[in-house]
């Protein structure tokens, strides 16, 4: 077969109209591959090889520069550390720090790193002395100024440093940082306010539970989980009044973590919320609070259509430990969901004689999932893991 006909067989119709003509005229060689001069090819090879060498050289150069700086910083830190320890030592009078004030730029940076490293671990009198030193040598002023930098990364770093130093003098600037347009800055400012803040400033964190930036909201939740006891009435009011569903969920979580007994009525009213997440969190918070008023509502929640709610209700019943719950828990032991059965069995193990009798009876249950769970709980005892 002629090449042209062969090409017509294997190539799409549109190409066969032109390609055989090219082939017939022997034009493929020139039309498809323009000639490359050898010198140009060699030039490109050398150019690319040069770039490789350049990359390798820049690698070695940056490593050398970094090593030089690191070594110098280490030497200076060794020289500065005794003086810093002298200032921070317990009972040391506030002697003038003129020598530290007179340090050059590099030494100040080294000193700053040293103080920030120490601040992470120091508490009490030594921490207060460190704060004083940081302020006296002007580093605090520098950080506050950096909080107004045009670069978000600088603002966030400044907020983090101020949180580490924990100087109350930085609070006004950090509270401003809570309104920053960048979510990383807001997040870091939230954390820092949690480290430094008083009751009034902690209150300002509560509305951030509903912040548009997810990580800001999470950070506020985390900070308030530690320090929220001081502002629990504000958290409760926020949970009641907010229009942000995310904020409300977070506030309900907090009410549970902080075991705010004053929230019982509010939580009871949320047990039948149409939002399943709110129901889960309300029942979970109620389980943590363990108010006896929750007993009947917990029984009702064992019939919720969401397994997470049933599970939390069973867990709540284990906290209350009422023998009146045994029949409800026996039913829950047959739930289709593993976790509900697990916490129902755990609750029975917590209830005492009646509960243990119910578990012992469940050992004989014809359903393996019921008897298996009962056997496990009886073997394991009360060591029940944290609930997801």
């Amino acid at each position, binding site marked *: 077969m002629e090449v042209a006909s062969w090409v017509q067989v294997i190539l799409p119709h549109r190409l066969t109209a032109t390609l055989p003509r090219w082939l017939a005229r*022997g034009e493929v060689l020139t039309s498809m591959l323009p000639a*490359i001069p050898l010198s140009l090819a060699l030039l*490109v090879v050398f150019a690319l090889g040069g770039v*490789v060498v350049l990359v*390798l050289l820049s690698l070695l150069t940056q490593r050398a520069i*970094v090593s030089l700086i690191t070594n110098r910083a280490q030497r200076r830190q060794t020289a500065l550390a005794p003086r810093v320890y002298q200032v921070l030592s317990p009972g040391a009078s506030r002697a003038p720090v003129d020598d530290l004030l007179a340090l050059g730029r590099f030494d100040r940076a080294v000193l700053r790193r040293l103080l*920030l490293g120490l601040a992470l671990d120091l508490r009490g009198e030594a921490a207060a002395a460190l704060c004083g030193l940081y302020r006296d040598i002007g580093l605090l002023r520098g950080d506050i100024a950096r909080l107004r930098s045009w670069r978000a990364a600088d603002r966030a770093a400044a907020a983090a440093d101020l949180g580490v130093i924990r100087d109350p003098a930085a609070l006004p600037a950090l509270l401003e940082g809570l309104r920053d347009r960048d979510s990383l800055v807001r997040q870091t400012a939230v954390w820092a306010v949690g480290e430094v803040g008083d009751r009034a400033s902690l209150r300002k964190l509560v509305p951030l539970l509903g912040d548009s930036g997810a990580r800001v909201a999470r950070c506020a939740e985390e900070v308030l989980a530690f320090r929220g006891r001081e502002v629990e009435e504000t958290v409760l009011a926020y949970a009641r009044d907010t229009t942000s569903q995310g904020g409300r969920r977070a506030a309900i979580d907090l009410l549970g973590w902080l075991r705010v007994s004053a929230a019982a009525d509010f939580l009871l009213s949320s047990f039948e919320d149409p939002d399943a997440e709110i129901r889960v969190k309300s029942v979970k918070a109620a389980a943590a609070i363990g108010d006896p008023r929750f007993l009947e509502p917990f029984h009702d929640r064992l019939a919720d259509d969401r397994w997470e709610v049933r599970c939390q209700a069973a867990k709540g019943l284990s906290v209350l430990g009422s023998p009146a719950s045994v029949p409800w828990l026996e039913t829950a032991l047959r739930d289709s969901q593993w976790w509900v059965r697990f916490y129902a069995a755990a609750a029975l193990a917590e209830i005492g004689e009646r509960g243990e009798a119910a578990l012992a009876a469940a050992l004989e249950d014809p359903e393996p999932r019921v008897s298996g769970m009962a056997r496990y709980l009886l073997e394991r005892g009360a060591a029940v893991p944290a609930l997801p």
Partner: protein
Amino acid sequence: MSWRVAVAGLGQAYGAFILSYLLAVNSYYLLLMVAGFLRTRRALREIFRPDQRRLMRSPITPPISLLAPAFNEEANVAENVRSLLMLDYPLFEVILINDGSRDRTLDIVIRQFGLRPSARSFEYAVPCRTIRGVYESPTYPNLVVVDKENGGKADALNAGLNLAWYPLFCAIDADSVLEPDALLRLVRPFVEAPLETVAAGGIIRVANGCDIRAGRVRQVQLARRLLPLMQIVEYLRAFLFGRMGWSAGNSLLVISGAFGLFDKRVVVSVGGYATDTVGEDMELVVRIHRYLRDRGRRYRIGFVPDPICWTEVPETRRVLRRQRTRWQRGLIDTLWRHRALIGNPRYGAVGLLAMPGFLAFELLGPIVEFSGYVLLPLLWLAGVLSVQYALAFLLLAVLYAALVSSVAVLLEDISFRRYPRVRDLGLLVLAAVIENLGYRQLTTWWRVRAVWEFARGDHSWGVMERRGVGAR
């Protein structure tokens, strides 16, 4: 018109195609790496100093089940479990899954940790081979050992998934070494965006050559043998910055089976790990993308640049060949199973960028490159291609690739500086250049062979011979 003219025309066209392809593939790696580097820098900036302490004591740090499948790991299993139990994390459990080992793996852990048979109740939420027994220890309340029939790594992970108590699970290799705070760092995306994050991958580094004692990396050093050294550069280029680059567009397709954190509920919803593929880690991630995008759910699959998992890489050609062919077969299998995603705008960046990218550069790349190594010299000998074209091919295949590897080493040194000794850096630089003179061609050939093996229906795993990372 003669046959010679036609063959010459086709040969030259193919030569031009290979040159353009190599230019594209290396530029793709370079761009991906630069994107990964920028993302890494940003991620590292966002981690503020007290982060680890904060997460360690936070009530909102979610508990994690660590799943560690083990098959014939008697040499290191006790030490590895001990190092896992010592991780810094507020609440976690270690589930060691003995996947029907034929050696003394199970006996050793039972004896070393005082394990007793447990009636721990579980459900087969995802399918797996029969679980023969569950063991728990009164001394180590967060250790669970599962003994099951042999079914492969994916099957073992499914068994662990069925036993896991916590909402997040971390799949790791039983012989990998995690840095003490690796979990704290890996969990960050889940803490910051708990509703969106469904999975997060972490960095895998090469443990060969490092000083490892009692399950901890005491000193980071380079491997002394050539093959592991080449793999270090490869891991930097492809896994560190490559994956970071994909994660920037929420289109990461691979989270290594040696170290990945997942939302258990999502993984159970998609049916767990696929047991009929050798690339179960990639397949799972692609299936998660597909499942969530089909349902229009907002989600995020993250990649965290700083958590470190150290793993032993093959030191012999035979074992490396098995590993690479298995990886390639896994890739082909995943792309084939999920071919509906390729080029499909419904799947966003995954369908339009990541899947076509993997198809064009990871699957077809080795074939095109290998055909270049074989055909271009022949065409040149036959007088069809000029020396300029042969040189250009060499340039793109070797020099451009060396540039990409060197940039990877440079970016690693700027971002992490995990190899502080100057001698190690020099060796890495050397490896970045010479890996393109033999090693790359060898792995290309193995990947081409994998295509043939896949076509023949070979689904074997092969055996990883380990010297034991904790034993040195």
